[in-house]
């Protein structure tokens, strides 16, 4: 298979500390893929590696069969957009100007701004409902609005692949759902391939077509959320005992964690059963 985004035997390290080792991962095209895992499991690192923010020590990432590390920076930026975790805009920069920066991979020294750029910015503002706020400085917006502005920038970049690192960080629950709905819309509207890192398993289960669970720099399970998000997997990946029930609204898995308070005593792991979930699907490596 040559189309789409694919990591092969990927090893990523900061200085000498290896964070990701031997990861093979194929991102389903046109779908929403969500990477989950405990803190420091390497999920953000994997996303950075797949968007060339990190150079691999070994292995490679392929986009439509071509190694992204050999592509021209700008050609890659026309194919793949990346929204880093909690980015910061210069004080006083307006939303419209920020979104306009998303057009830079489509511009040259010669042609700095064209009507196409104006159209793309207008559309990005409209589909994120930011048109009315376009002339406000980004730093004066609320957290949710600010994140929409950044998503609009990534959208103006107009790439078939969109990677987002924890797009809901620092947002309240209502704005988290708002941002996730927006991302789902963007996926559906243009069959854009979306890959994001999320902390919340329930949100991952609800919004992902494909879940990738990571532990200690390796992929331990991937597949449909209903197959992947099980009590055993949550225990394995997060070290947390839980029950997994069906989300009454979406029908997707809903993780209900055990704690030391206000819960019945936890049962031993072997007798822990969940009723409605099929066998855990292990990533074969």
């Amino acid at each position, binding site marked *: 298979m040559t189309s789409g985004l694919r990591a092969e035997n990927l090893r990523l390290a900061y200085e000498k500390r290896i964070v990701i080792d031997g990861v093979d991962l194929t991102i389903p095209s046109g779908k929403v893929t969500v990477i989950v895992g405990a803190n420091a499991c390497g999920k953000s690192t994997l996303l950075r590696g797949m968007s060339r*923010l990190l150079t691999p020590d070994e292995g490679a990432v392929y986009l439509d069969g071509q190694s992204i590390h050999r592509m021209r920076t700008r050609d890659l930026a026309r194919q793949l957009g990346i929204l880093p975790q909690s980015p910061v805009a210069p004080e006083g920069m307006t939303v419209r100007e920020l979104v306009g920066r998303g057009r830079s991979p489509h511009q040259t020294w010669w042609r700095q701004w064209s009507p196409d750029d104006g159209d793309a910015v207008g559309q990005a503002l409209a589909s994120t409902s930011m048109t009315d706020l376009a002339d406000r400085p980004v730093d004066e917006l609320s957290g949710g609005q600010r994140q929409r502005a950044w998503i609009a920038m990534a959208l103006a970049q107009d790439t078939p692949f969109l990677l987002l690192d924890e797009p809901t960080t620092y947002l309240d629950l209502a704005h988290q759902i708002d941002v996730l709905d927006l991302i789902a819309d963007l996926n559906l509207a243009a069959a854009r391939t979306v890959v994001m890192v999320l902390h919340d398993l329930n949100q991952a289960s609800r919004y992902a077509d494909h879940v990738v669970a990571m532990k200690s720099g390796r992929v331990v399970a991937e597949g449909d959320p209903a197959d992947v998000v099980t009590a055993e997997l949550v225990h394995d990946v997060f070290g947390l005992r839980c029950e997994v029930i069906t989300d009454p609204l979406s029908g997707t898995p809903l993780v209900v964690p055990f704690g030391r308070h206000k819960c019945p005593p936890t049962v031993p792991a072997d007798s822990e059963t969940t009723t409605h979930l099929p066998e855990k699907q292990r990533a074969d490596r």
Partner: protein
Amino acid sequence: MAVLTYRIGARGPSGEIRPRVLAVCVALAVVAFAAFCVELTVGDYPIDVVDAARALFWYGDPTAVEIVYDLRLPRALVGLFAGLAFGMAGALFQTMARNPLASPEIIGVTEGANTAAVAGIVLGFGGTLSASSLALFGGLVSAVAVYLLAWRQGTTGYRIVLVGIGVAALFTSTTNYLLQRADLFQAQRAVVWLTGSLNLREWRHVAPVAVAVLVLVPLALLMSRWLSALTLGDDTARGLGVPVQKARLGLMLSGVGLVAFATAAAGPVAFVSLVAPQIALRLARRPTPPLLTSALTGAVIVLVGDLMARPFGLPVGIVTGAVGAPYLLWLLARANRVGA
């Protein structure tokens, strides 16, 4: 916000023009030109503005022509080019480091130039090499040192600032040591150099800084697209297709070259690099310092500063310092209040 877009032909060049930035640039250019002309009239031999302008085109009193060409034009040109260079370099450093305090004085380039120049004056090996050439050499060496020491699988603006502060401190103490062991005459010369002055500038001071400005300013303007992506952070810039390390190296080299040549010509005129970009961005009402506006602001500050200092027989660096320091304090107080 008013932004005009232009497009020449279907496949021709296109871009954006911000009327306010353009108006500010034109106003600054007018002020700089006026100050430049007034510079030509100041001195022992009385020449008014009209005669000075005529003398530029070899018209009028031959003595006036000679005085304008031999004495006053070099001074005014050094002021103009050094001001442009300091202002533009300040804007490059501040934008790249995303920090308004990242001026060449603070990140080591100026300190390296100072140490080399003072060493030349005090230790006496400036015989064949002038203080200017030594300053140029010192500034470039210090910039290379900062860049290499900040390198760790690539650099970040933040690391460059921190390493630069360390390197600057090292050079400052070396300069102070040299001043301690200097005799009175040497120390006086060194202190005049360290203040930054346009006194006794000749054509040999003008040529290098003029070439540096004419080459590096257009180069930096070409790279300004990269610069504006870098203001969103390294990761975002890379995601937008900017070759971040290459861009930062190119921008830093232009900034360092401008500062080193300007310092070689005029000495380290205090605070211009720090203040000019901050004034420029407030005048132009832009989130980051616009390059050309900053350069023109720098030229205005140096030329007007020199005009203010001359009646008192003071070097220009004292005036820019006296005006720049309170501005720096205000900036710091404001940054504390915002919590940045």
